[in-house]
């Protein structure tokens, strides 16, 4: 086993934690001050929570160092060692996917900007002007763009990672590599596109806002949290779909249908208030169980309402993300040894 430099790991972990705390504190400042938890003002708990988590982080790093010195088993240490060992491979696979995607196109990565924009224009014209679905949604163009960007990101991630095992069959049958790497790298390479497509979203919002009084606020700092939560969800979905795909190639076609259905079931082009107007309040309740609704709403709150989502939203999104991630992970782990027999 290679010895990893835990000091560096610690430094990186601290840096990430610090950035997260700063982003969150600045971005969600108003919420922190106004919200209350179990009758206690959140502002009182918040500093304590920050200190508590940093203490936990400190003790966990200490535990890892202890485990490394004594050579005892530790899941966290094993994970870090595996990551360290295959870091270069992950990097190369992500690079490959990203390079290949736009390799033979003239505009290259610029398509990541252009695609959501074009989609937005088409859908805006069709739904808002031709069909008049916009309802009473304010800033409908931006509302639509938020939905499209997030949905495309999710769809891209899940479709790419679904094929990750079957398309890498040539490698899996020849070289031993932990198989988790394949769906994870697909999500990572697709996530570059999501991050890139945030740029046109913010740019269009800024330009649109100049004329319509919608300004970007410091809540934009919270965007990474929303994206990260959705990406964790995507990784879980990738584990789930890719392992099913090995055994049943039907999944590819089934998923094509399910994802279309899912897209129309998610308030991307319409809004929940339309359900209410039509008296279908039960549909509003059903949407509460749609994870994509929550991820999209997360982004919309940040951009359209210019504030942090309610803390309960963070909880709901996190529950969906971790839930599917763990479910997918354990399923993947259970069947991964059988992949080779079916590829």
């Amino acid at each position: 086993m290679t010895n990893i430099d835990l000091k560096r790991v610690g430094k990186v972990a601290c840096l990430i934690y610090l950035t997260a705390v700063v982003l969150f504190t600045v971005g969600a400042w108003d919420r922190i001050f106004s919200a209350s938890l179990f009758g206690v003002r959140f502002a009182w708990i918040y500093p304590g929570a920050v200190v508590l988590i940093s203490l936990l982080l400190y003790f966990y790093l200490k535990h890892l160092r202890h485990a490394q010195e004594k050579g005892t088993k530790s899941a966290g240490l094993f994970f870090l060692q595996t990551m360290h060992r295959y870091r270069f491979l992950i990097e190369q696979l992500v690079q490959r996917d990203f390079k290949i995607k736009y390799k033979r196109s003239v505009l290259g990565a610029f398509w990541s900007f252009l695609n959501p924009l074009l989609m937005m224009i088409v859908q805006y014209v069709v739904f808002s002007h031709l069909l008049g679905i916009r309802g009473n949604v304010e800033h409908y163009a931006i509302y639509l763009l938020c939905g499209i960007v997030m949905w495309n990101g999710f769809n891209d991630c899940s479709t790419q990672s679904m094929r990750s095992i079957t398309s890498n069959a040539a490698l899996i049958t020849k070289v031993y590599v932990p198989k988790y790497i394949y769906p994870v790298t697909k999500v990572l390479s697709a996530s570059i596109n999501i991050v890139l497509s945030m740029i046109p979203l913010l740019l269009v919002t800024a330009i649109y806002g100049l004329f319509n009084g919608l300004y970007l606020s410091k809540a934009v700092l919270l965007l990474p949290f929303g994206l990260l939560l959705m990406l964790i969800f995507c990784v879980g979905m990738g584990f789930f779909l890719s392992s099913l795909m090995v055994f049943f190639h039907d999944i590819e076609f089934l998923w094509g249908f399910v994802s279309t259905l899912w897209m129309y079931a998610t308030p991307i082009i319409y809004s929940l208030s339309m359900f209410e107007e039509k008296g279908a309040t039960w549909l509003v309740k059903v949407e509460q169980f749609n994870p994509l609704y929550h991820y999209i709403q997360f982004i919309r709150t940040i951009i359209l309402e210019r504030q942090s989502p309610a803390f309960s939203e963070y909880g709901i999104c996190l529950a969906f993300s971790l839930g599917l991630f763990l479910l997918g992970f354990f399923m993947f782990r259970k069947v991964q040894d059988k992949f080779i027999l079916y590829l």
Partner: protein
Amino acid sequence: MAEEKQLMLSIQDVSMRFRKEEDHSGSLKETVISAFSGKLKFTEFYALTHVSFDVYKGDVLGIIGRNGAGKSTILKIISGIMKPTEGKVDRYGNIVPMLELGSGFDMDLSGQENVFLNGAILGYDKEFLHSKYDEILEFSELHDFINMPLRNYSSGMIMRLAFSIATVVKPEILIVDEILAVGDENFQRKSRARMMELMSGGTTVLFVSHDLNQIREMCNRVVWLDGGTVRLQGPCKEVCDAYRL
């Protein structure tokens, strides 16, 4: 025995069972239907049964046997690609499998990009690849083409590049499925020399071949697999003579 030899690989009582579903079509509908109608039949088939042998440091172990004797299966189990149904394999060193050259190549990437991609797949690290890049380029003789996408390469050029990447390391355990002699005559000579150099350099080698002359020439020990079991194992000459009969 004068000196204690260091154990590199220990294959303990390994069995590999394959379940052959009667015409598995990989379709959800058919699986569900046949599962409900009780027609989901498996024919079990053992590719390996209770195979055990040890490999020590510096050994060049030949594995011989007829087609379907389980040679490729045991190599896949040793390199960790397959998990055995029963038994286990202990490994005491890093393994570089050379089962099929260039299986990780991407045709749309350039030769240079593929060197790093393929190197990463084989488990080399970044610093190592950077330091050996020139050597790989030198050996593959692809100076003028290294920045071209692989789809424009001839098949000989692809094999030359793949061979150069795969043999740039000095692994502790090297797994070779047939001696790799690729390219034109000049390159074949070079690659054969490189293989010999690797095999004689203190590396432990597992080597599968149908060419008994090659086995006799290179190996010090031989395992003869027959129908999934070890028929005979021991010093090279002894086993090869028995195999011939």
